[in-house]
């Protein structure tokens, strides 16, 4: 079996990429999705707030997914659900296994990686304490609650102020649990401000910034956690301990792009994003293999996932028609002061039509700053004023080709 474009993952990124590839004229496309339905993690994100940019209205996660599934149904894209990709070879052979189809090897001309991300766990951040039950990643608890209809606890402390944790604070509260505290090690929240207001403040849930959990106690199930203030180096300050009697700890301590398939295919990974190094069309280090959405870098808004994935899907279709881009000028993108990373990591200038959106995150909260793009000679290529910058909110700027053509060497994005 062979396809022009095989999309790995049927979440928001994969759906948008497949539809965009179809709309660009590609007629041989297959989506491989490991879950039992399309839509990915949106299916359990039943809160609203999705689609303000893309659809200009506020939708719930499942509604947002359904809009794209409906679009997909009007195409001839093949869909394999409940199917797991085991391997992608550098030659773009995709090995999949499923209950319905058995073991299949599909040959692609182009592959779009859209596997999304996973949550950081307790082990990833070495929280001390007992090994009792009642400690969940926020996303796992969200699945139990929203899809399966089960409560995972009655008295809850949330570690981390990422958006899923905040959203779960509200969900658990509305379903009858008592959320005692949300604890964030950084001096600012990692979540969107609107979620702090709607999910914590609305229910008088205290947010402890610059605090962390320093002990978890309990025999079978969690019985108590100890929370301490931390200093600038994130070390707990003795004497600041507070105890919370609770039966549940939810972790919302970050997301990690899922790139095991990408790594095994030999794709170059950027240690800053933990996603593939991509160009302005989201092509990875293997020509014809594209990546989009949270597998590239973790987003806060699905609308941006959609926009980025449409670009990747269109480029995958174009690759099937005309092969590798041939640009001779490649501008590398670097992160300067105050910027954590950039996506894309390089721009093939000759292939740019119009302008290139550049996504990044800043390292600290700041006000009334400028985002400045300089070339390797220090020349300012572009500058964008910003009233408010925060690490919890992904930033983006658009660099028009005419400005890029003036650059000597690479580009550096910084906050000044």
């Amino acid at each position, binding site marked *: 079996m062979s396809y022009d474009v095989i999309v790995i993952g049927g979440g928001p990124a994969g759906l948008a990429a497949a539809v965009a590839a179809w709309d660009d004229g590609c007629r041989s496309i297959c989506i491989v999705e*490991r879950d039992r339905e399309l839509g990915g993690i949106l299916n359990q994100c039943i809160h609203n707030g999705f689609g303000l940019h893309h659809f200009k209205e506020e939708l719930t996660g499942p509604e947002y997914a359904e809009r794209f599934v409906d679009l997909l149904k009007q195409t001839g894209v093949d869909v394999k659900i*409940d199917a*797991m990709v*085991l391997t992608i070879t550098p030659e773009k052979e995709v*090995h999949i*296994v*499923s*209950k*319905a*189809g*058995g*073991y299949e*090897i599909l040959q692609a001309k182009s592959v779009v990686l859209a596997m999304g991300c*996973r*949550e950081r*766990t*307790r*082990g*990833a951040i*070495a929280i*001390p*304490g*007992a*090994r*009792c*039950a*009642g400690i*969940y*990643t926020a*996303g*796992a608890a969200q*699945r*139990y*609650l929203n*899809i*399966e*209809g*089960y*409560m*995972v*606890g*009655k008295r809850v402390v949330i570690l981390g102020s990422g958006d899923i944790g905040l959203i779960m604070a509200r969900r658990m509260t*509305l*379903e*009858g*649990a008592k959320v005692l505290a949300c604890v964030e090690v950084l001096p600012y929240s990692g979540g969107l401000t609107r979620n702090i207001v709607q999910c914590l403040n609305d229910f008088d849930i205290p947010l402890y910034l610059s605090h962390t959990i*320093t*002990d*978890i*106690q309990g*025999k*079978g*199930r969690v019985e108590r956690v100890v929370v301490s203030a931390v200093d600038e180096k994130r070390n*707990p300050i003795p004497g600041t301990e507070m105890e919370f009697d609770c*039966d*549940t700890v939810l972790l919302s301590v970050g997301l990690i792009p899922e790139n*095991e398939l990408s*790594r095994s295919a030999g794709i170059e990974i950027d240690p800053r994003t933990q996603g593939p190094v991509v160009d302005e069309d989201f092509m990875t280090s293997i020509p014809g293999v594209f990546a989009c959405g949270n597998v590239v870098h973790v987003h806060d808004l699905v609308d941006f996932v959609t926009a980025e994935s449409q670009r990747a899907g269109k480029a995958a279709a174009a690759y099937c028609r005309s092969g590798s881009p041939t640009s001779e000028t490649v501008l590398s993108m670097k992160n300067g002061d105050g910027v954590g990373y950039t996506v894309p990591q390089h721009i093939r200038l000759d292939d740019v039509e119009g302008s290139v959106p550049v996504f990044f995150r800043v390292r600290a909260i700041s006000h009334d700053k400028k985002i400045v793009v300089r070339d390797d000679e220090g020349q300012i290529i572009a500058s964008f004023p910003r009233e408010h910058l925060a690490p919890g909110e992904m930033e983006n700027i658009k660099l028009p080709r005419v400005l890029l053509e003036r650059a000597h060497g690479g580009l550096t994005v910084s906050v000044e």
Partner: protein
Amino acid sequence: MYDVTIIGCGVIGASIAYTLSQYKLNVLVLERENDVATGTTKANSAIVHAGYDPEPGTLMAKLNVRGCAMMEDLTRRLSVEYKRVGSLVLAFDEADRATLQHIYENGIANGVPGLEMISAEKAREMEPALADTVVAALWAPSAGIVDPWGLCIAEAEVAVRNGVTLKLRSGVSAIRDLGEHYEIETASGTYESRYIVNCAGLWCEDICNMTGGAPFTTTPSRGEYYLLDKSSGNTVSRVIFQCPSKVGKGVLVAPTVHGNLIVGPNAEDIADPFDVSCTAPGLAEVATAARKSVPNVNLRDSIRNFAGVRANTNMSDFMIEPSKTSPRMLQVCGIKSPGLASSPAIAEYAAEQLEAMMGVKFEKNENFVDGRTQVRFRKMSPAEKAELVAKNPLYGRVICRCETITEGEIVDAIHSPIPPCSIDGIKRRAGAGMGRCQGGFCGPRVLEILSRELGLDRKDILQDKDGTIIITGETKTGGAKA
């Protein structure tokens, strides 16, 4: 009336049960928890030590070297993951070099095969990640790594399949020595048995105290660990020790049979043998010590911290002998490191001791069926996978995406001779949830499969031991009204 009752089903109890199941004996195994392999057996370094540490002439020296030699064949028969990767003990200064020489001589006296003192250059050639500060190393090619709970479960399964009775949730509360036999009171009822084997690990002393007093005292010693993601699994390819000290074999860095990297343990005496908490100072101690051997060990790749408690006693050697106060009870006590490596030899030796105690030579059970097979989808070639899925489509549905564990393997585990009742029970048998997401994605699905296959309500499926409740209730039953 049982001939022999084994108290405790860690790797020692399971090994002895497996060995005794090969004879015409009526054997009972009593385990306090809801599954086998839940104590020290599930939380240790998973190393098959070569046998150079124990003092020559001790039982420990003899059984360690013999156990290590038996491991390869045993694990192949029982389909348990094992790799003979060898171990290096590092010296960082002249004092260490002297220690190294001492354990080298121990090893030679103990009959450890292939031991070799090597230069720092040679060591770094073998393991490029080693620190520049290494001055010499001891190379022991016979050391290995094993799946410790897998070994215990496999031995217990084969024992049960061959007629051994296993009673879970059967903590022993009293033992009455009635002269000809014992009455053993447990949480699941009272059992009668002619002989007892005490291999209750951390609780051996308590069992001794039920039959006239313990000749030793137990000092539970906790060790904390990091388990690193598979992306760090190739940091080293052999077990890397530092020179042993009085408190233990020190912090090691080693690959695991599952492809991860294990880093630890420290050693801390604790009062409560159930206390498997990790602590910030303990983990920091492990991190510092590990970096001494392997400076670039990437602890950011950690997927799990855990702690195990060693059954240390005031005895320097293993104790495998009849109780002085109750002579039909075989004490298998003080089994600290290298207990796992020694376990097959301990079982062999314990069986000989029992024969001596009973004054008989055990008769072979001619119906005994050895061996066990286990499907491991992830280890198969594409052609084998295709064939397997064609035969049974359940092997085509991947449930644990990090470790590529299929529904078929999970269902196999549930219908194995010792059916697990918890998500961690599935993890220990099939490997689901062992990976980098630590069951975040597959946990709810494993719970669903357990509930379906066992006919239990989802709320009754546990994470691990009794009391480790996962689901506390349903939504839409009036929660918001309350």
